[in-house]
């Protein structure tokens, strides 16, 4: 039985790593490409005023957008490719933990018959509140 769960876990781990690879690699290439063109500083300058509230540079908005629109792996791919400090990564991790893959996960939650607006409201407010809070604390 041990062997069986070991094998199944290994299999699942490799499958998850593959799922990660399929998303993290393209996102990493995309963000790095932006870094090598003026586009990243445009994005950065555009979002800088809003992102300042949670103590993040403008380009970190990419991680938040990708993480919420696609999934956590995409957000992580963006984090990996940007040059961020530990504090900034921790704030992003807190915000993304509360609110990510909004399309997919809201659809899943909806299946249980719970009000979708309520769920979205809770998740997004938690992300923003704790982003602001930990920018002050850390």
């Amino acid at each position: 039985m041990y062997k069986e769960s070991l094998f199944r876990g290994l299999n699942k781990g490799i499958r998850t790593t593959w799922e990660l690879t399929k998303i993290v690699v393209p996102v990493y290439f995309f963000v790095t490409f932006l870094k090598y063109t003026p586009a990243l500083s445009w994005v950065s300058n555009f979002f800088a005023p809003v992102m300042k509230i949670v103590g993040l540079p403008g380009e970190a908005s990419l991680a938040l957008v990708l993480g919420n629109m696609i999934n956590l792996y995409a957000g992580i791919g963006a984090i990996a490719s940007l040059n961020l400090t530990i504090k900034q990564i921790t704030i992003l991790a807190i915000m993304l933990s509360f609110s990510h893959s909004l399309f997919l996960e809201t659809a899943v939650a909806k299946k249980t018959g719970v009000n979708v607006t309520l769920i979205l409201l809770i998740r997004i407010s938690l992300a923003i509140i704790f982003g602001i809070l930990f920018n002050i604390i850390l």
Partner: protein
Amino acid sequence: MDFVGFLKESTFGSLNSIFDMAKIVIPLMIVMEMLKDLNILDKISDFFKPVAKFFGISSESTFPLVIGLIFGLAYGAGVIIESAKENNLSKKDLYILIIFLVACHSVFEDTLLFVAMGANGFLLLPLRIGIAIVISFMASKILDKININKNKLPEHIL
């Protein structure tokens, strides 16, 4: 544009990140499969029974709660729907379970992936679980006040 520099940075950078994450994800999945097979999940659910009381939900709700907490929302929601059918979970049970789990699910995988990126896991994990407990408790008070259980469950769950 420095195209070679771009290719180099993207290739090595992304592979490096994948490698960092694989080192965490593969052992974690093995441990989680073992947890499942050793029936430890039932024991963990029993341990959570007082938590159910705290939220004012039925003790049958703890199993889907633990599953979602460890294995993720999609898996958790599946188990919630199943338990709702088998154990007649109330509308309040469902709301508390989902409110808790949208704020806090697949905690080990998510936390460790962020740790691989450099985040502080000792802050991240307790914060996420703590806040999920606080909002679920608040929700439980509000749901009692509006007497949610008078509402019927959605048809596909009955």
